């Protein structure tokens, strides 16, 4: 899931001031941002209170099922047409994908209420960790299922670097070095030490990514 954290409140107020907004509509997200505790109903209502205390009026609010879903979000904006019309701006408590979906669906200024930070594993309720960069050129087959691109702060494919000390990471000094973990797991599984991984193919990470399953039936998926 996409992990988000609240955007700096001062920055949100500045952004609203920049577009001259006094009346605000708030949109949350029923998916990732709800699980991350940043853009569910509870957080949307907290934002409403905070905005009202700061002198803004809130014309309405909604928590769409999945805010990054174009069709669903369009439907949601139609349901709240009047409240959206009455607003000067929309504040979206979702990841950047959701903010853009809302921005495509309404003609008012749409502003981000959260920062999108990573694709997260849910380690346990409320604990998220970044394990994958979505690089498009997976090396987990060679690295015992531990991604060095993500979990090594330098993203080194071949390590440890010169900063490793007693098996610990140079940057996150309270964490074991990813490359030490990889070699240990490989050994535990009776797999030989990892060979040198070649430089990554960054052309696989074509921006902006796009997949069209309808096209893929004709053999055209990217």
């Amino acid at each position, binding site marked *: 899931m996409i992990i988000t954290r609240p955007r700096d409140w001062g920055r949100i107020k500045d952004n609203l001031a920049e577009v001259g907004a006094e009346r605000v509509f708030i949109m949350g997200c029923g998916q990732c941002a709800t699980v991350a505790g940043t853009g569910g109903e509870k957080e949307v209502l907290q934002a409403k209170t905070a905005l009202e205390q700061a002198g803004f009026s809130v014309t309405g609010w909604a928590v769409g099922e999945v805010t990054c879903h174009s069709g669903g979000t369009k439907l949601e904006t139609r349901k709240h047409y009047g409240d959206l019309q009455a607003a000067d701006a929309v504040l979206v408590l979702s990841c950047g994908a959701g903010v853009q979906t809302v921005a495509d669906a309404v003609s008012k200024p749409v502003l981000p209420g959260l920062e999108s930070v990573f694709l997260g594993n849910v380690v346990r309720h409320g604990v998220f960790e970044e394990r994958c960069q979505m690089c498009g050129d997976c090396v987990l087959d060679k690295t015992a299922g531990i991604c060095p691109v993500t979990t090594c702060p330098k993203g080194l494919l071949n390590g440890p670097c010169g900063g490793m000390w007693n098996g610990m990471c140079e940057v996150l000094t309270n964490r074991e070095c990813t490359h030490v973990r990889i070699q240990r797991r490989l050994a535990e599984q009776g797999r030989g030490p990892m060979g040198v991984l070649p*430089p*990554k*193919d*960054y*052309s696989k990470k*074509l921006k902006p990514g796009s997949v069209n399953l309808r096209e893929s039936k004709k053999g055209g998926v990217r």
Partner: protein
Amino acid sequence: MSRFRDALERGEFVITGEIAPPLGTDLAAMRRSIETIGPHCHAINITDNQGASLHLSSLAASRVALEMGFEPIFQQTCRDRNRLALQSDLLAAWTLGLENVLMVTGDDPRGGDHPQTKGVFDLDSTQLLGVAAGMNAGHDMIGRPLKGGTDFFLGAAMFPEAEPWDMQLLRATRKVEAGARFFQTQAIFDVSKLERAVTALRPLGAKIIAGVLVLRSARAVDFINERLAGLMVPEKIGSRIKRAGDPAAEAIALATEQVRAAREIADGVHLMTLGLDEAVPRIIAGAGLG
């Protein structure tokens, strides 16, 4: 002081050329090119991994041109280096005697010869101009004072024929605000478009050097239309080259006409010969600039 800068600031019509450093360490061919075009140019652009393909560094090649007695314009792209490397190379450039710098964003790596590489783009060309202007004011991009600063003559690229024009003009204006003092334009095919660029940018204090491309062959026309981002040879010009009995001679004749036209409008011309170095003296003589 940069003679190129001095000439531009005195209002002289300047001529610049362009050299791509070699893939390898043999400098003989590059030296020959510099010797061919150098005497006819106020300055020579030394490209930086042109076309996102590997070449010897612009820094080293610019120094070679300087040692040969010609003035280089050191090109820096944002594609291959982060802000530490860009700043470090700028400091190096100044210590090597390179006074003119052209900042460009850089072509996407996927169009080059190492398509698997990561495009850096830590800064963009406008931001990099600002960084270099800061160095001219004596500090790095985080504001720390430099022990010995720089006095670069800063240039940028622009495309007078790009549409929408208001976007292109806004971007060029931002580059001037960031520190650009001269522009070298993408190839000009329509003189009226060059005129609108000069009219808009000269009052801001920027000099405009019009890009003139020597379309040396039918293949060159096709290559540009199919492979070069942001450039199209108009049908009329393309077919003039393709129909000619001697396309190279026709290309030189066309470039000569373009230089004559640019002379009435711009502050200089930038000759891009696509490797046909001997075109430079012929165009300059033909345009009466010799």
